[in-house]
């Protein structure tokens, strides 16, 4: 890894370490070194540097809530907005703990997309009716409840 002012440039070894950590953040330095055929001290140094410079932001646990016995539903909302208010609406959405992701996209018109979680359909509806629909600039909302997941990546792959 090279550091030029505020910018960092990762080399091939850094990327390979990150790929392994994305798959399993519990791997030890020795295990990573063994897989990549480098010394564990090299792995340690690289990871330390990436942590210090914010390339590695944090390590977290991905919980399968269904297996943990937690009842919840997830839904995808498409929110059509007054273009003048869309930034403000997206910021407000991001503040709710029920909202897991917020993004904007453009096809025929600019819309805000949000992934929402709730205990059940009644609570999902109450949240949307009481917290989202009243936001100034919300023109209409389409919501699809997720019935089955075929793939879910916990982190974004390096393409």
């Amino acid at each position, binding site marked *: 890894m090279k550091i030029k002012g505020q910018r960092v440039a990762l080399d091939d070894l850094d990327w390979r370490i990150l790929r392994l950590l994305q798959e399993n953040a519990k791997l030890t330095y020795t295990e990573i070194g063994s897989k990549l055929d480098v010394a564990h001290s090299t792995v340690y140094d690289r990871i330390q540097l990436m942590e210090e410079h914010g390339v590695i932001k944090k390590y977290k646990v991905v919980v399968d809530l269904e297996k943990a016995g937690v009842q919840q539903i997830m*839904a995808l*909302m498409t929110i*059509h907005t007054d273009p003048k208010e869309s930034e403000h609406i997206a910021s407000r959405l991001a503040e709710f703990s029920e909202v897991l992701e917020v993004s904007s996209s453009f096809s025929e018109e600019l819309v805000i997309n949000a992934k929402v979680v709730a205990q059940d*359909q009644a609570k*999902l*509806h109450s949240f*949307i*009716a*009481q917290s*989202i*629909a*009243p936001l*100034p600039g*919300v*023109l*209409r*909302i*389409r*919501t699809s*409840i997720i019935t089955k997941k075929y793939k879910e990546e916990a982190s974004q792959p390096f393409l």
Partner: protein
Amino acid sequence: MAVSSSRILRSVLREEAFYFFTSIGNYTGQSAASLDEFLQRIKEVNIKSLEFHLYREDFEKWIDQTLGDAKLAEDIKGLRNMKVVGNALRDRLYFLVSRRLKDLKSSVETSK
């Protein structure tokens, strides 16, 4: 204690308004912040929205708990029990709300 007619006829805050949905999470973009606006929306909204809210008891709850009109809420409950759907529902609901609005407005006028 009976709620005064003028209080029932007031406009409520944006957060307390009625928001029309056609199903769970699907907001039509139409809302009503007073009984007057509510009557207008009955004419305009998708019939699916009227059916969705009537059978979830949303109209009764909003009219009773937010506007404070127990009488109209009771009338709408009666309509729900009749299991009316489609345009017949729109017509019946419009009739009930417009009749009640007329009475409330006339009560406000006579008390002046």
